[in-house]
């Protein structure tokens, strides 16, 4: 492997670029015009523009990315997560071009990308799957027939998509037919495919996933679980490991199932087996993520294994130099995803220039960040700014460390989810470890309610700055940070900057 192209952005591009540099492999950032001043572009050895801000024209533009790899002499591509990371056509194209895709082979991506196909593979391999219809249908009668085969509450889900579209929870069967009709119609209009499948509804479910590493020499290990039940808008907000729901016996069983799942899928590289975990400790295969996860750092903290470096090392043919029995979970790690959003106002995204930034640091703190002071958060991409991770000897220590880290995290210029995280971490139910996927919804009054009253120290500080300081107060202000800056030549320099 001589040179790696990273057609991604933000904190994960920074993470991947660091890993390449640590392995002494030159690395090229493939960036959109909107990202010319982004941190990952500055950290890469080279940077090449692949198109306009719109993702379809840049980070999702397979032709432009392949061209960029050719032009810069890259013989490998690390896709990060999101964008083309789980796109089997992209992986296949690279395979055809003779460029190493740092991830699993394209047929594996394709199979795992289909809910129906992946469930069929897992069922065959003896992995528990959620009872339901393996084969979907867009025929209302067929779906009704399949529904009758399963007892109790069920979920209707669209085969082609996610994000809640075409999804219906059926607790009471009296209006089943109209709900099926709605789901088919919604799926058809959202994804151009009305295929609906049925799943047994699991009460108070948790989302627990297992990290997998599989090399090209037949060795597959799991690196224990991550508990990802705290979600909003079907997106993870906070993850931790170990899960408070597992004991060693259960952990071993699920880990074994995850390794079997990876083996059944013919897996290679880093991947994640997601399980739905029910009230009675039953677990079901949900899906397999064929890429690095956002939440990988908590596993790195507790196992000491560098997952991103291993992705690259596996892709260049290296053998895993440890076995399952060498891996030990040590301590506890928590990740908070810091989003650019106004969590209290229905999580609406927030963008603008970061006028002030103070990032947490200290023992047991890792902040995988993609931002800097003076940089502008643009409306084109995912609102993730950074991932703050805290490690402690145990869960209590990790929570406390994270609380102190969040208290020291200052981001001005945009709204963020920092306060949301602080409230989650001080919530009694969370502290008890009772985290189900419904957690945020169930506690929204405490978690998203209005803030505490303003303490007197704040009034004193404001008085000192506003009144006593008068004109002499040196406030940081956006003008000084803004691009273009007061520098006379900047305007001209920016011309064609994105090309």
């Amino acid at each position: 492997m001589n040179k790696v192209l990273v057609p991604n952005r933000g904190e994960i591009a920074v993470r991947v670029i660091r890993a390449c540099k640590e392995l002494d492999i030159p690395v090229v950032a493939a960036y959109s015009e909107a990202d010319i001043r982004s941190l990952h572009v500055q950290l890469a050895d080279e940077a090449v523009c692949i198109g306009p801000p719109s993702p379809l024209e840049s980070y999702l533009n397979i032709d432009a990315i392949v061209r960029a790899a050719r032009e810069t002499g890259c013989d490998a591509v690390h896709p990060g997560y999101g964008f083309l990371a789980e796109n089997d056509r992209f992986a296949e194209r690279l395979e055809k071009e003779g460029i190493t895709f740092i991830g699993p082979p394209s047929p594996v991506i394709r199979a795992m990308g289909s809910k129906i196909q992946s469930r069929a593979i897992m069922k065959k391999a003896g992995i528990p799957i959620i009872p339901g219809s393996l084969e979907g249908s867009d025929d209302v009668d067929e779906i009704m027939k399949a529904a009758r085969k399963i007892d109790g509450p069920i979920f209707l889900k669209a085969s082609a998509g996610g994000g809640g579209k075409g999804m219906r929870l059926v607790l009471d069967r009296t209006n089943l037919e109209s709900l099926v009709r709605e789901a088919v119609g919604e799926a058809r209009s959202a994804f151009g495919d009305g295929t609906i499948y049925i799943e047994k509804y699991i009460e108070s479910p948790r989302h627990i996933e297992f990290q997998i590493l599989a090399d090209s020499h037949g060795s597959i290990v799991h690196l224990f679980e991550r508990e990802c039940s705290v979600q909003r808008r079907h997106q993870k907000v906070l993850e931790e490991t170990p899960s408070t729901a597992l004991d060693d016996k259960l952990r071993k069983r699920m880990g074994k199932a995850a390794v079997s799942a990876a083996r059944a899928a013919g897996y290679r590289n880093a991947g994640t087996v997601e399980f739905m975990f029910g009230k009675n400790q039953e677990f079901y295969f949900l899906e397999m993520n064929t890429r690095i996860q956002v939440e990988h750092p908590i596993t790195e903290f507790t196992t000491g294994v560098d997952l991103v470096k291993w992705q690259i090392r596996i892709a260049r043919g290296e053998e895993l130099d440890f076995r399952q029995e060498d891996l030990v979970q040590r301590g506890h790690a928590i990740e908070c995803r810091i989003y650019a959003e106004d969590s209290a106002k229905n999580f609406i995204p927030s963008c603008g220039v970061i006028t002030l930034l103070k990032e947490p640091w200290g023992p047991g703190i890792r902040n995988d960040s993609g931002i800097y002071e003076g940089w502008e958060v643009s409306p084109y991409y995912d609102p993730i700014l950074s991932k703050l991770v805290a490690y402690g000897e145990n869960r209590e220590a990790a929570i406390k460390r994270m609380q102190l880290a969040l208290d020291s995290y200052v981001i001005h210029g945009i709204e963020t989810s920092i306060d949301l995280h602080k409230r989650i971490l001080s919530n009694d139910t969370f502290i008890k470890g009772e985290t189900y996927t419904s957690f945020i919804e169930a506690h929204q009054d405490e978690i998203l309610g209005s803030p505490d009253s303003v303490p007197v120290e704040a009034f004193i500080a404001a008085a000192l700055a506003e009144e006593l300081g008068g004109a002499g107060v040196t406030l940081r202000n956006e003008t000084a940070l803004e691009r273009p800056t007061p520098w006379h030549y900047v305007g001209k320099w920016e011309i064609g900057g994105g090309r």
Partner: protein
Amino acid sequence: MELTICIDGVEKQLDVEKKGDHYRFSIDGKEYRVSSGSLSNGALTFFIGNRSCVAYFSEGSGGRRMAMGGRTYSIESGENENHRGGTGASAHADGTVESPMPGNIIAVNVSEGDAVRANQAVVVIESMKMQNEIAAPVDGEIKKVNCAVGDQVNFGDVLVEIEPEK
């Protein structure tokens, strides 16, 4: 000296007196000894009694902000009558619906002349790969629609105007 300070919409009266090497603040009947203040590089440090405090200040399009003790506050200047109650406010009681973010219009649910209820979604904006419903602030009738599907809008653009019900 009497000062009026407004933070996050809450106004307080502060009485400040210079006492040799420190200041005495009186707030809500309580007294605070404030000393050793210093402002440098946007950071204010000072002591309240035995406690060292640090506050950071910034100014941007959203107004003045102060960070202290793990929280961010909006600072309104004493003269400003129109207190902002927070950030990202996108709708006015007068029925003007402004975009709370830059993004793409992906749905416009109303037309001129439609009757709407408060909290009814009138427009959907996609920003940062998320769809965000923008709601009517008041009951009323749609007076004007200023956007169409596919439009790129910016922070503060007026999307819809509503004639509030009397």
